[in-house]
């Protein structure tokens, strides 16, 4: 039933050795009080001094997004999703569950799909971030976007950008998917309006359309 989240859809570990889920949002990285949970955080807190400790105040963060360099001042606890939406006004990635469940905030980190709500902005430093704004526009739809329109794979549209990103990444890994593979590979995104029937068709159709051509 549930639990079909694609295992491959994991963001890369950040350079500092601290990975996603290492933090409970809302606490500064240097604060190791009772608010923090998780063994990784415990290790991070006890890490040798050479391991960089940032914050809790704003620190310089350089993000590479859609081929542009952005130099920001962010508290270390700011997620990549918040940075994209609030600082860079890239609002295609949506905040829905805010804890790595629904996929509405899917972006690419070095071309691999990741939940932007589940990464800190500082973890994304040194990586190439691509948002939906970076793979197409309303006047120049990517093949997946086009297939979504064609098969009406969207209603309210709030989950749609995340699905388009997930589908795009899925088809890069698996250009000739079966229906079963589509259902497994896209299990990490949720929709409330019930657009899955259209999405299944859109992905299979986009796969055909993308044969032999490059995209995104």
């Amino acid at each position, binding site marked *: 039933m549930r639990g079909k989240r694609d295992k491959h859809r994991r963001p890369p570990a950040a350079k500092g050795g601290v990975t996603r889920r290492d933090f409970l949002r809302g606490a500064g990285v240097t604060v190791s009080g009772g608010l923090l949970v998780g063994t990784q955080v415990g290790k991070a807190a006890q890490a040798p001094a050479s391991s960089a400790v940032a914050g809790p105040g704003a620190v310089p963060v350089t993000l590479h997004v859609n081929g542009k360099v952005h130099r920001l001042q962010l508290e270390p606890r700011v997620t990549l999703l918040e940075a994209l*939406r609030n600082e860079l006004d890239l*609002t295609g990635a949506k905040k829905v569950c805010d804890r790595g469940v629904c996929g509405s905030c899917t972006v690419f980190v070095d071309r691999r799909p990741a939940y932007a709500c589940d990464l800190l902005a500082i973890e994304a430093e040194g990586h190439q971030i691509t948002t939906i704004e970076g793979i197409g*526009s309303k006047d120049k739809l990517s093949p997946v976007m086009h297939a*979504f*329109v064609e098969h009406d794979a969207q*209603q309210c*549209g709030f989950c*749609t950008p995340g699905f*388009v990103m997930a589908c795009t990444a899925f088809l890069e890994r698996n250009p000739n998917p079966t229906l079963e593979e589509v259902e497994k590979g*896209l299990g990490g995104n949720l929709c409330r309006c019930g657009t899955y029937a259209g999405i299944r068709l859109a992905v299979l159709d986009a796969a055909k359309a993308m044969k032999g051509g490059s995209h995104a």
Partner: protein
Amino acid sequence: MPKCKYDWPEAGDRGLIGESIDRVDGAVKSSGRARYSYDVHPSGMLYARMLTCPYAHAKITSMDTSAAEKLPGVKAVLVIQPVGSEIQWAGDEIVAVATTSEAAADDALRLIKVEYDQLPFLVNEEDLSKAGDRAKPSAEQKSGDPDTAFKDPDAVISEGYYGAQVITHCCLETHGSMADWRPDGKLKTWSSTQSVSDLPGQIGEGLRLQKVDIQNSDIETVCQYIGGGFGSKFSPDRWGIVVAQLSKQTGKPVRLMLERDQDLEVAGARPSYYGKVRVAGKKDGTITGWDSDTWGTGGMGPSGNPPVPYVLEGIPNQLKKHTRVNTNIGPSRAWRAPNHPQAAILTMCALDDLADKLGMDPIELLKKNIDFAPEILRQAYVEELDKAAELAEWKKYWHPRGDKTPGHLKRGLGVSIHTWGGRGHASTCLIAIHPDGSVDVKLGSQDLGTGTRTVIAITVAQTLGLPVDGVNVMIGDSAYPKSGASGGSTTVGGVSGSTRRGAIDARDQLFAVVAPALGVEPTQLESVNGRIQVTGDPSKSLSWKQACAKLGVKTIEAQGKNPGQCKLGDSGVGGAQIADVTVDTETGLVKINRMVAAQDCGLIIDMKTAESQVYGALTMGVTYSLFEEKVMDDQTGIMLNPNMEFYKLAGIGDIGELVVHMMTGPGYDERGVIGLGEPPVISPGAAICNAVTNAIGVRVPTIPITPEKVLAALAKGGMA
């Protein structure tokens, strides 16, 4: 020629109407460029969040906000419910803050100290014996002579217990808005709302209740895109007033969107209904009596009696009791087809049990008793049941209760029928034809993702003889002519009616200007294929652009209204659905093989978005039947799953094959436009319950049908 000026074109002349046309905002959505209220982010905007009550029932005894007020980044602290207030559910809003960053808002909330006296609470209602004085029975309803009907020695009587849980709306865009109270005293809100035209008045009223002075006419609400509503976003809610107060107080734009946990806790729940139902019937299948004792909760407020017996409302000899249970679970709200899915479960499962007792095919039982359904729908139901049975291969796969094939995988089919009104709401619009040939349609409606923009574009384009992209649809702003809220499947009938009438009147004005150039009377003209021509004679014509150029500098404007002259819509639709499931008797898992829907909704404007409504409804139906539930904790009174990993929505691999058949043609089209949002979401629950019963030979009485419940039912006496 149509009989009435504004009538829909006759079959054969409908052009775009009824075709499968891409939604007009498809590209802006799929490219991630659609701007929702959650995305509006003007420079200098503050972020607001609210501290909520952690207890199900409590009185506030003390409050200290001083530390939060001193925190850097905090621009305003607003007490929503002061000391002394009695709180009736966990998650209720106590204090709001507006800050320069999201994180600062969290910090500020942590610094606010509120103390409470906890009070007794009730958060679960299925066990009525524990409800005590929270149970509020309503008067018994009786018709005919149920006593005699159930005592008849020849009667076959089935008896069962059925129920549907409390679920939430779980809109992916949480509730909330961005408010900008400007120095000139005017307030503009970007609100996630199903009710663009009505919201300013409601916000004004809410502000005046808080002693904040403003005229309704100084408030404008915008909602270009909304990330789900499903009946939960008709009012500004308390947070919609608070955000305006915060904006006024700080002099800055302020955005207040609920956090996910708050949204699931307080921003809407579908009432539960449980019931013991008895049905009496003759051996030939004729139903002779109905006896139901039902209860349920809509939080602290009334949620209405379930409309049972559902669809077959004319069943003779009825006895109905209903008890409302007041619980501290947060308020209920209209949830797509309010009370109907639950009533369908109470009724269609009971009838399925009667059919089993009679040794009848349940489809035959429904058809046998179809005269108990409203007369206008009887023929449709028979046709829809036949069509659904054909598409589901009912004859091949349905079997008497209990799949007798060996092994642990049991397959079963179940059926349900449903109804809804869906008459078009009041709507006004303004249609403008400009000298450059462009066409604007303005109305204060909203597109929930149902395809409202597309329906408007098709209606006006077809009426003017233009392509769909020749019409500029402008909705989602209360500054436009007033149009109804989008609820109860009323929008498509409302906006197609107003824009059809407006477009005909605008077109006639254009004909009057153009007629002299073509040397004919205006009544001899038609607008087709991008041209204004003498009816039936394309050789005497002007292109649309040439025709509009004759306007000189003057734009044509026409108003359109619904309701109005000529019958463009109706009320009352039917539908039949069949679920095909496989149940694993070792794990209790239910897998959907196929969901089939045969649905009528009068004249369809856009087949593509109409079908999407049904696909979506089937999917939501699978979700509420198998997965989602607002789980409340008896010990603490709080919701245990206010997040999206444990408040479970179906995923793309959970829904099986979906088959949708829209009933069109004679008998359907001439009824005009009728709404479609609600009806197809009603039957999935009952159909899936009946399919599971058909598979395993024993009833799982309540939804969601979890593995645990399946195994418990099997242990009680099914086929393991």
